[in-house]
């Protein structure tokens, strides 16, 4: 029985692709300058010329949302990829070798889950706060730190179940080295579960970046970020709710789409009822 991914899945994928393309090519697309104040009437609602309306100082909300996507997507993608490489490697080593290596790595992973993420981030901002340019590196660094442990745990569990299979034993009997067994035999089997999981991690990172930006600690203005737009819009919530509402909707749909695609892929790859 071949499972179908469904039309909603492809809609979500299409949305994500459109958003990513728009963010990447924001400079060459015919959209307004996100920094230009009084490009239209201040606090004006959505219209044909300004799709998402204008904010408190008359900047175009739509183009600011597109440029804000750059920050969210770059930080979450880079963070996820790095975490995937490091966490995946640690998880595979931990699950494959077992014994003392496994015990130490698992202990370290559990310990790193102990400090609440946002609090850790705040401490790091205090630690490394200096020029605004470095803020983006701190963000990525923290996000990698935060997502290594969850990824490593998932990969470790998957590796554990594959490492006991007959074909792994066969490869080892034939004299394959550990590296070859890990990368040629186990990795292809483990990969689906962590690729789909990484989308969910990515959605999580977008939320964390949003929270941090909301608190005013992400990439500083004038670079637009979704979280910051939502926060600044709160002062005009009673007269011009769209200033907060539009970035909030885009962020919601993005996170929902990523979660949905990740969920569906997991069900697609995994024949069993997926376990948390």
């Amino acid at each position, binding site marked *: 029985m071949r499972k179908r991914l469904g039309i909603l899945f492809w809609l979500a994928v299409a949305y994500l692709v459109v958003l990513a393309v728009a963010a990447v090519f924001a400079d060459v697309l015919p959209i307004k300058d996100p920094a230009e104040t009084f490009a239209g009437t201040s606090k004006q609602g959505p219209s044909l010329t300004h799709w998402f309306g204008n904010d408190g100082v008359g900047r175009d909300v739509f183009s600011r949302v597109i440029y804000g996507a750059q920050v969210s997507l770059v930080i979450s993608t880079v963070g996820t990829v790095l975490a995937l490489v490091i966490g995946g490697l640690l998880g595979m080593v931990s699950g494959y070798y077992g014994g003392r290596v496994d015990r130490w790595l698992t202990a370290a992973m559990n310990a790193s889950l102990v400090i609440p993420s946002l609090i850790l981030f705040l401490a790091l901002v205090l630690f490394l706060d200096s020029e605004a340019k470095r803020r983006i590196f701190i963000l990525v660094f923290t996000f990698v730190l935060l997502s290594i442990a969850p990824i490593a745990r998932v990969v470790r569990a998957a590796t554990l179940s594959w490492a006991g299979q007959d074909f792994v034993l066969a490869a080892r009997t034939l004299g394959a080295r550990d590296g070859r067994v890990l990368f040629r035999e186990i990795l292809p089997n483990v990969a689906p579960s962590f690729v789909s999981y990484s989308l969910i991690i990515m959605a999580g990172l977008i939320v964390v970046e949003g929270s941090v930006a909301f608190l005013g600690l992400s990439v500083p203005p004038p670079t637009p970020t979704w979280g910051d737009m939502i926060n600044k819009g709160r002062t005009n919530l009673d007269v011009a709710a769209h200033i907060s509402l539009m970035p909030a909707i885009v962020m919601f749909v993005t996170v929902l789409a990523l979660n949905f695609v990740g969920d569906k892929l997991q069900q697609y790859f995994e024949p069993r*009822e997926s376990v948390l």
Partner: protein
Amino acid sequence: MKQAVRDQLGPIVAAALLATIVWAWFWRPPFSWTFGVLVVIGTVGAGIADGRYALRRLAGVIPVLVGVSFVVFALMASLPGDPAINILGPAATADQIAIVRTELGLDEPFFNRYGNWLGGVLTGDLGTSIVLREDVADGISRSMTPTLQIMAYSVVIALGFAIPLGIWAGYRQGTKTDGTINNVMLGFLATPNFVLAVMLVLFLSIGGLSVAGNEIGFRVLPAARYVPLGEDVVLHFKHMLLPSLALAMGQAAVFMRLLRSDMIATLRLPFIDLARSKGLPTRRILWRHALRPSSFTLLTVVGLTVGLLIGGALIVEFIFTIPGVGAYIFLGVTQRDFIAVQGGVLVISTLYIVVLTMSDFLYLALDPRLRGREVGARA
């Protein structure tokens, strides 16, 4: 021989830990209140379940706590810039700086400073805040009450949504009802709590959107300000409802999904068929027979999400201007008050670890099948 010694070690260390916690926090009302409740739950759970396992787990908590305290201290100690200059301002003379450095003990070697600080922490002394000029332990215990209230209310609200919906969706697995509940909850899962908070304020507090002169929304709940429980009970809950809801819905989705999948597994077991064939009403089977064996994973996860809730509480406190621990730490960060930040982070991490351990015990107490066996602590 060695085994016998090891068996004795667990209880002794655990007893020492308990004594330390009680001694350190006893005289600070909100702390003693929190930790008192936690210790009682833990002890009762351990007693019902498996005494030796519980004590071993408790003993295992100590190195984690020491490790966390070290990381927090090292992080704060390696901050760039001289804290003395931060306190005095750039116009300070060298003499003044020297005096403040001695006062803060900054000239001593790193490990001495760590030892002094840890010694202070064990006696409930977290130092004096640089900016607020106030005892950090006092400041945190004052801010602890609103944070604990928000967290407690939101867990209650989340479970209030998750349990009935999880049971219902699990029972009607694969139907339209199940699908609808799942999709709505996935929606809440994808809503960051600050977005939800802003939306709740918009639609429940300030009248919502106005389209063609009509308001789509309500003005029923106040948006910000904290009213202590002791001051006015009704106003307190009115003000806490929006922040707690904003924090609760994401958790409700996680809880509901877990309970649903465990419920599905339980409903396939033979004892459910037996209950059915006895002619028991469905409602009774679901709530009395199936809920308990389905709720174990849920319980551990409730413990795990406390960490998430603390992060979320920070945001919610920021939006609704509630003077909680998150707000306290945030203020410390923005004003570079490292003593307040390290105290706050340490207290929150400790609380988190303790809750996590306690939820493991509760797990054992509820599921007799696991007793006498090692449980994967947080699998």
